[in-house]
């Protein structure tokens, strides 16, 4: 297990869409490094015979009827009520494609 670097922190911040200021980078790097360093104690556990557990219910493939119950749906107004950034009942998002390249 390698030591966490400033570049690692910048990398994960980008992956997680978090803006970390230059002032904060050093603090987060040191705090996260000490936590990650602590995890190295797990290497002493013999897990050669262990299966990974992702959840404890033992349930698999829990289905419901494939029908729409209108009572469980939010109206368009209700669903878009969380923001003022609406246009014609749609959420406005940042453009992904900005220029035309066909002309």
């Amino acid at each position, binding site marked *: *297990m390698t030591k*966490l670097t400033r570049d*690692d*922190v910048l*990398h*994960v*911040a980008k*992956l*997680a*869409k*978090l*803006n*970390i200021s230059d002032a904060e980078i050093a603090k*987060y790097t040191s*705090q*996260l490094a*000490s*936590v*990650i360093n*602590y*995890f190295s*104690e*797990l*290497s002493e*556990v013999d*897990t050669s015979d*262990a*299966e*990974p*557990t*992702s*959840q*404890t*219910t033992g*349930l698999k493939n*829990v289905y*419901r009827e494939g029908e729409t119950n209108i009572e469980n749906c*939010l109206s368009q107004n*209700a*669903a*878009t*009520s*969380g*923001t003022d*950034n609406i246009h014609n009942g749609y*959420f406005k*998002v940042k453009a992904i494609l900005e220029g035309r390249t066909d002309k």
Partner: protein
Amino acid sequence: MNLPLTIKETRKGLIDKKYSAVELVDSYLEKISKNKDLNAFLTISDDEAYAKAKEVDKLVGVGISEDQYPLLGSAITHKDLFLTKGVRTTAASKVLESYVPEYSATVVKKYDEAGSIMLGKANCDAWAHGASGENSDFGPTLNPWNKKYVPGGSSSGSAAAVAAGLTLVATGTDTGGSIRNPANFCGVVGLKPTYGAVSRYGIVAMASSLDSVGCFGHTVSDVETMFNVSKGEDGFDATVKNVESAKPKDKLRIGIPREYFAEGIDREVEKSVTEAIDIFKKQGVELVDISLPNTKHGVSVYYIVQPAEVSSNLSRYDGIRYGNGRDSFGAEAKRRIMLGTYVLSAGYYDAYYLKAQKVRSKLIQDFDNAYEKVDAIIAPVMPTAAFKLGDKVSDPLRMYLADVYTVSANLAGIPGLAIPSGFNKGGLPLGFQLLGPRFSENTLFDLGKMYQEVTNYEPKLAI
């Protein structure tokens, strides 16, 4: 007025016309307003509370049978992770500071239908990230027993409000100890149910394989009533199954896990647990020494698995459909998101996340082995009683390490009941927890009620 201290007392008071539900709400709101400095509430829903109280008074007037409305007139406060339709829900984060939900959580609906009166939303660590209440974006809640001390977290406001008599009961979530910890630090009863007993629908998700939906009250009996109202399939949470908790055996065996009494535990905390052990012994319960060998790895496993799941759950907060943008996240949220992203990222997934999942299986095996010999396990909840505000804020790792006695129950999906047992020399609450196999809540309730009966437990309000 002397506020009632149990669900039964509340109901009797209403039926005997000692007070009306509207008068109850008056008294609670007055007490809440007198104790604003505790910062236990983020939102007070007084209009809704009075509207409900009037309905309750009508029901009492018309007459109801004994088995209707099990929570009739009981004042309830919901941790601010629980979506409440029409009432602001913030998760104690600036990201959601103006968010008003268009629907309510399943358990909010269930508690409402059972006749309870919601007073408002309780403060907590933002996104449930914390074990002291100090990570709320709206200021920490104070411990009502000593305001220089933390109430515990993350369900800080919920526990503090019950302890201070600002609400009769409250809800919380426990992902790594967030009900049992503040229950312990505030001297009230707290239940973390079996993972999959209670629906998580409509509750802001922290770590989806670990989150457990539970409650706080003054007595084990009240917490039992609350649990029975909340449990069961609702068609919205695929991890919930209607499993009837088994009837407890006549002769019970409690395990004492030697790893939980190793170094690092405060003398008075340890003494309060051994005193509880003696009380159970005197009642004919068999006490058995057991070992949970992988206990010390619980914190590592938890702080890999939980942030990984947090980083996924918090990715939905992009400020597009609701809430503010990701720059509004506090420091602890950012730390956990980054930690989680790191352990899941290419090149590190196997060494951290996959390894942690395998050690998780070993922790589960420890409990399975123990439960062949015993019906429940007794343990301290935290290594110390409540600590001073500010004591651990600059050292996240130190804060994480104190979760050693609580996280394993979440990793294994088993229930835990935190029970108060007195006070330390500093006047701060002491207590212990009982852990059982999955769906063994009835055994935990029986043992807890036995303890409170034998010790003639009388709820005492901090304020």
